[in-house]
C-alpha cells in the first residue's frame, strides 16, 4: 500500500465511528488548548519582563555595593561595625556607604570603564504650567536604558542641560494639553536642602515615559539634573555625609561575554564588593514566574496524557471492530508493518486534529483575553501581551501532541499488526 493510500485510508477510517472519534479529539483538544494557553502565558510574561529589563538599564552596567548589602544578598545580617559609615537608602534600611575612595578602587579593576555614583535624590514636588504642585520621585537615568516612551526622546547623560522625562499621568495633572505638548517644555522641581530650606530647580522635558513594572512612579532625570538635585539637597550637610553612596554603577564593555562578566564580579568580590548586573537582580523574579509557568505546563501535559489513554481506548476498539477487515487485508497480502502504519497514522491524525483545533481556539481565546486584560485591569502596563503565541512554540506543541498520540497508538497498532489473518477472519 502506498503512503498516500495509507494516509487517506486512515483518515477515512477515523470517521467511521464519528462520535467516538469526536470525543477523543475533544479530549486531545482540551489538553493542547490548555498547553497552548499556559505556554503562551509564559512567553508573554517573560517577553514583557525582558522588555522591562531593557527599561532598567544598559546591559553593560554592574551595580556595585559592599558585600552583604542590597537585594538578593545571601549572607544574612551583618554585624555592626562602628568604623564603617552607614547611609539611609531609598528602601529605608541602613547600609554601609560607599565613598569616593571606593570609586577609585573599583576603577582600578581592569575591564571597568567608568564608575558613577548611584545618587539617591529626593524631590518634594513638581509644578507645571497650571501652577499646581504634585509629589514626585526621581530616578537617576542610566545611560543606555530604553525607557518606554509615549512620545519624545530619551534623556542624555552627556549634556549639561538638566533634562527629565515626565511620567504619563503627570501630563494632564500639570496642565499640559497632551503628550506632544510636553516635549521641549520645562517644569520646576522643589528640593529641600540640609538646612530645611526649599530650592527650585528647572528641568527641560525631553519626553513622556510610559508606566511599567520597573518605572512605575519616578521621573527619569539625566545626570546633570540628578547632580544638581543631589548638590542642592546636600547643602548644609556635613561633608562626611554628602559623598556617601548606597551603590555605584560600574560600566564595562557592552560586548563582554558572560564569562568575562563573571570574572569581573569575582575581581570585585576579592576587593570586597558585591556586583550584580540588572539581569541578575531581575533573575529571581523571572525564576519564580518560570516556575509557575512550568507547573501550569505540567498540568496541561497531564491533561494530554489523560487524552492519550482516550486515543489508546478508541484505537483498541477500532482494532477490535475491524478484526475481520484487518484479517482480510492481511489475506490479500498487506504486511504487518503496513497495518501498524495504518493504525499509527490514524493515531497521529487524531493528535493532529485535536492539537490543530486546540491551538487554533487557544489563539483566538488568547487574543480576546489579551484585549480584555490590556484594556481593563492591566491597562497601566502598556506593551504587555499577556499571551503570546510564537509560531515555533505552536508547532512544537502540535509536534508534542502528535508525538504523544503516536506513542499511544503503538499498543493498538501492534495488536492489529500481529493478528493472524485466519483468526481474524474466523472472528465472530
Amino acid at each position, binding site marked *: *500500500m502506498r503512503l498516500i493510500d495509507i494516509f487517506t485510508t486512515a483518515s477515512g477510517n477515523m470517521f*467511521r465511528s464519528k462520535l467516538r472519534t469526536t470525543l477523543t479529539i475533544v479530549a486531545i483538544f482540551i489538553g493542547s488548548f490548555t498547553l497552548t494557553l499556559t505556554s503562551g502565558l509564559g512567553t508573554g510574561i517573560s517577553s514583557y519582563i525582558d522588555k522591562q529589563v531593557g527599561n532598567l538599564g544598559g546591559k553593560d552596567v554592574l551595580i556595585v555595593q559592599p558585600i552583604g548589602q542590597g537585594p538578593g544578598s545571601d549572607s544574612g545580617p551583618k554585624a555592626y561595625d562602628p568604623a564603617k559609615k552607614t547611609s539611609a537608602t531609598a528602601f529605608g534600611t541602613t547600609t554601609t556607604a560607599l565613598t569616593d575612595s571606593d570609586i577609585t578602587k573599583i576603577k582600578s579593576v581592569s575591564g571597568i570603564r567608568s564608575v558613577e555614583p548611584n545618587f539617591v535624590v529626593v524631590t518634594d514636588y513638581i509644578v507645571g504650567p497650571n501652577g499646581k504642585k504634585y509629589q514626585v520621585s526621581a530616578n537617576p537615568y542610566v545611560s543606555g536604558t530604553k525607557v518606554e516612551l509615549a512620545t519624545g526622546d530619551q534623556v542624555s547623560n552627556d549634556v549639561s542641560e538638566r533634562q527629565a522625562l515626565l511620567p504619563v499621568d503627570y501630563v494632564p495633572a500639570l496642565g499640559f494639553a497632551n503628550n506632544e505638548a510636553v516635549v521641549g517644555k520645562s517644569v520646576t522641581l522643589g528640593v529641600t536642602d540640609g538646612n530645611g530650606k526649599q530650592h527650585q530647580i528647572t528641568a527641560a522635558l525631553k519626553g513622556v515615559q510610559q508606566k511599567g513594572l520597573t518605572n512605575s512612579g519616578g521621573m527619569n532625570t539625566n545626570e546633570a539634573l540628578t547632580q544638581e538635585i543631589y548638590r542642592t539637597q546636600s547643602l548644609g550637610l556635613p561633608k562626611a555625609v554628602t559623598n556617601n553612596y548606597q551603590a555605584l554603577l560600574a560600566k564595562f564593555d557592552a560586548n563582554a561575554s558572560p564569562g568575562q562578566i563573571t570574572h569581573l564580579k569575582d575581581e570585585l568580590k576579592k576587593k570586597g564588593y558585591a556586583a550584580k548586573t540588572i539581569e541578575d537582580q531581575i533573575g529571581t523574579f523571572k525564576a519564580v514566574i518560570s516556575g509557575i509557568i512550568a507547573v501550569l505546563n505540567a498540568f496541561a501535559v497531564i491533561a494530554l496524557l489523560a487524552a492519550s489513554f482516550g486515543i489508546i481506548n478508541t484505537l483498541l476498539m477500532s482494532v477490535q471492530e475491524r478484526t475481520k477487515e484487518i484479517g482480510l487485508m492481511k489475506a490479500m497480502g498487506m504486511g504487518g508493518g503496513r497495518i501498524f502504519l495504518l493504525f499509527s497514522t490514524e493515531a497521529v491524525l487524531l493528535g493532529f486534529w485535536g492539537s490543530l483545533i486546540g491551538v487554533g481556539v487557544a489563539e483566538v481565546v488568547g487574543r480576546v483575553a489579551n484585549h480584555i486584560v490590556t484594556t481593563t485591569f492591566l491597562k497601566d502596563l502598556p506593551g504587555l501581551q499577556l499571551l503570546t503565541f510564537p509560531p515555533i512554540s505552536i508547532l512544537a506543541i502540535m509536534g508534542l501532541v502528535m508525538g504523544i498520540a503516536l506513542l499511544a497508538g503503538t499498543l493498538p497498532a501492534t495488536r492489529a499488526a500481529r493478528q493472524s489473518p485466519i483468526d481474524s477472519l474466523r472472528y465472530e
Partner: protein
Amino acid sequence: MPAESPVISGRDIIKTYGKGDGQFTALRGVSLDVKAGESIAIIGKSGSGKSTLMHLLALLDKPSTGTVSIDGQDAGRLPGRTLNTLRNKKFGFVFQQFFLNGGASVLENVILPLKIAGVHGRERRRRGLEALRQVELEDKAKNKAKDLSGGQKQRAVIARALINEPQIIFADEPTGNLDSATGAHIENLLFNLNKRHGITLIIVTHDEDLARRCDRQLHIKDGVIDVAPRPRRGVRL
C-alpha cells in the same frame, strides 16, 4: 485446460493446534496436487479440516510438518514479504461472509487488493469498474456496500477477488449465505471464470451439488483425504 505441472502441491501436510493436553490435530498427513485451470472442491463436514487445508494452500498459515509448494517453490522457505506479494498477485479470495466495508462504496471495496498492491488511483478505478462489469454490478459502483442485497454483495466480493487477475480463486462456502437461486447465479459466475479465463478454482464447501460441478472432489474426513467416498458422478481422478 489443465497444464502439466501443478500450481499448488501439498506434501504430507500435518497441522496441529495448541500444545500438551489441549493439542488438536486438524490435518493428519494430506498430499495433493492442484493443476492450473482445474476446479477442485474440498468437501467435508464441519470440523473435518477442510477450511484448515484451504488456509494452508492459500498460504494464510503454515503446516506443522510437510510442505506446500507454489509453482514448484516451497512456500515454507519464502520470506513473509514474498508470501504477501504472492497472495496479493496470484490469489483471489471469496468467503462465506462477505467482509465488505459497509460504509465505503462498492468500488472502494472492490479495489482494496489493488490499493494494497500500490496501484495508482486512476488505474485502480479503471480496473475496478472492469471487474464490476464482469459481475454485472457496474451500476452499483458508487453505492454503499451495506445497501446491496446478499447476492449483489457476493458478486462484489467476486469482483474484488477478480480485480488482480489472479491465477487461483479460493472460495470458502461461497454460496453458504445465499438463497438457492442467488447461489446458482454466483456458482455460474465462478465456473464461467474457471472456463473462460482459466482461473483455477478451489472451493471449500459442504454442498454436494456445488462440489459435483467441480472437475475434482477431495473429501476430507477427520483430517485425511477420504479415498473411498460414496459414489459420485462426473469424477475424474
